[in-house]
């Protein structure tokens, strides 16, 4: 069994989203999903997918590539929205439109029963986000809540707590993924704006750690035992030293955050997962197995292709990249961790 936990379906063309917006918002200008400052030099998507419509926008083509060519059993669709738009009510409508489109174009017509989906919500509108979770949480094919990596406050802050509480109450993990579009955002690195694509792409995913650290330190996981976060852009290669830092500070400064009732790293197995990224990990395969055991990553990592992104790794390529892993580690990454998190069973049907 193989579960691909990170697939980005796209609208066929930018304005297609208007079909799913209510009249009050139909004429608003909305950033293009591709509208961002750092584009991969050779194109953001797999080269052979360029055509009349956006790559990853035709369910039949995506099915063929993932399920037939790749041998994937389940694919979890996590669509992008259009950035942290200052009009947060409009942004919430965009999230709802993306969700309605995902159901209409992808999940409901899928008779193969292999696609699963994400409820996109806007964290800058906590009430609207909770409402959107309540509206859609019962759908059997919607397995998680999705929020952008880009945020003007880290996700451990208390204003977000009602959203995480609602997700946990419905047993839905919260997936954090770098968003499309262009909104009111901080620079992508801690030190400001990058110049080149590698400068952006190497460091932007690492912002996850600020979200993760504040979720732990603010006691979000301690207060919500069912709350789970999936960091969908990887970044697990830096997990170990950063958890060492958090654990060390906790031993010294525990009295400032006594609701953190165990070593910060001890929250990981019960609350945190990562999607694989082609960029993470040692370059030499010989170091892979030992590296994977640091901080128990073999229990945290789930295969995610990022299809149709240019760096997408189909399962056979991923298996090569994971060559240094032992069988149990490889099974964990390719399907077992995802199967347990999302409750996906071996037989599709």
């Amino acid at each position, binding site marked *: 069994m193989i579960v691909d936990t990170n697939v980005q379906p796209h609208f066929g063309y930018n304005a297609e989203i208007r079909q799913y917006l209510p009249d009050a918002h139909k004429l608003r200008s909305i950033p293009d999903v591709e509208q961002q400052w750092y584009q991969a030099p050779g194109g953001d998507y797999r080269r052979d997918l360029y055509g009349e419509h956006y790559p990853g926008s035709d369910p039949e083509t995506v099915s063929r590539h993932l399920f037939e060519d790749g041998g994937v059993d389940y694919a979890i669709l996590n669509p992008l929205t259009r950035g942290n738009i200052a009009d947060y009510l409009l942004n919430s409508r965009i999230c709802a439109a993306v969700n309605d489109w995902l159901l209409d174009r992808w999940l409901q017509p899928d008779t193969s029963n292999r696609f699963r989906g994400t409820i996109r919500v806007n964290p800058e509108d906590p009430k609207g986000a909770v409402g959107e979770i309540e509206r859609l949480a019962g759908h059997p094919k919607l397995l998680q809540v999705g929020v952008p990596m880009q945020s003007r406050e880290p996700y451990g802050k208390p204003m977000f707590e009602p959203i995480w509480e609602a997700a946990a109450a419905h047993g839905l993990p919260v997936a954090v993924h770098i968003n499309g579009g262009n909104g009111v955002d901080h620079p992508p690195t801690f030190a400001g704006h990058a110049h080149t694509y590698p400068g952006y792409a190497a460091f932007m995913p690492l912002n996850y750690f600020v979200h993760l650290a504040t979720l732990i330190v603010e006691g979000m996981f301690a207060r919500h035992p069912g709350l789970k976060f999936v960091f969908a852009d990887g970044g697990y290669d830096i997990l170990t030293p950063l958890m060492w830092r958090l654990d060390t500070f*906790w*031993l*010294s400064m525990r*009295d*400032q955050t*006594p*609701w953190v009732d165990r070593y910060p790293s001890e929250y990981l197995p019960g609350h945190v997962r990562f999607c694989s990224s082609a960029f993470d990990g040692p370059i030499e395969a010989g170091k892979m197995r030992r590296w994977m055991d640091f901080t128990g990553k073999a229990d945290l990592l789930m295969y995610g292709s990022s299809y149709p992104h240019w760096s997408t790794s189909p399962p056979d390529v991923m298996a090569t990249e994971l060559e240094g892993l032992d069988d149990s580690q490889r099974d964990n990454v390719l399907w077992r961790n995802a199967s347990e998190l999302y409750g996906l069973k071996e037989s599709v049907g």
Partner: protein
Amino acid sequence: MLQRRFVCTLDELPPGGMKLVDVGKFGVGVYNVRGALYAIVNYCSHQGAPLCQGMIGGTNESDPDEPDRLRRVRDGQIVRCPWHNWEFDVTTGQNVADPQRRVRTYQVDVAGGEVYLTA
């Protein structure tokens, strides 16, 4: 070999006080916590700092009902290491964050108004 030795008179070690005794390699701190006597080694289990030089006070627990979500507890029995702030409960020798990271404790007794340490 443990040996029972005179520390000071009880009058010289009032509640809240500490006497550092020159015994063993690192010394032992004898504490009066609200009238009861305890002793710990003057050597932090982290990196060997002179632990008994640290401030003695309380620590914080989580209290969801308070505006700052904090409650002050164990006042007078928590020593904070002067190097990295690790907290130890002098009544048990246990680190507050991780009880398995403990420091050694010793027997203290009072006889005829005099404090004795067995170390």
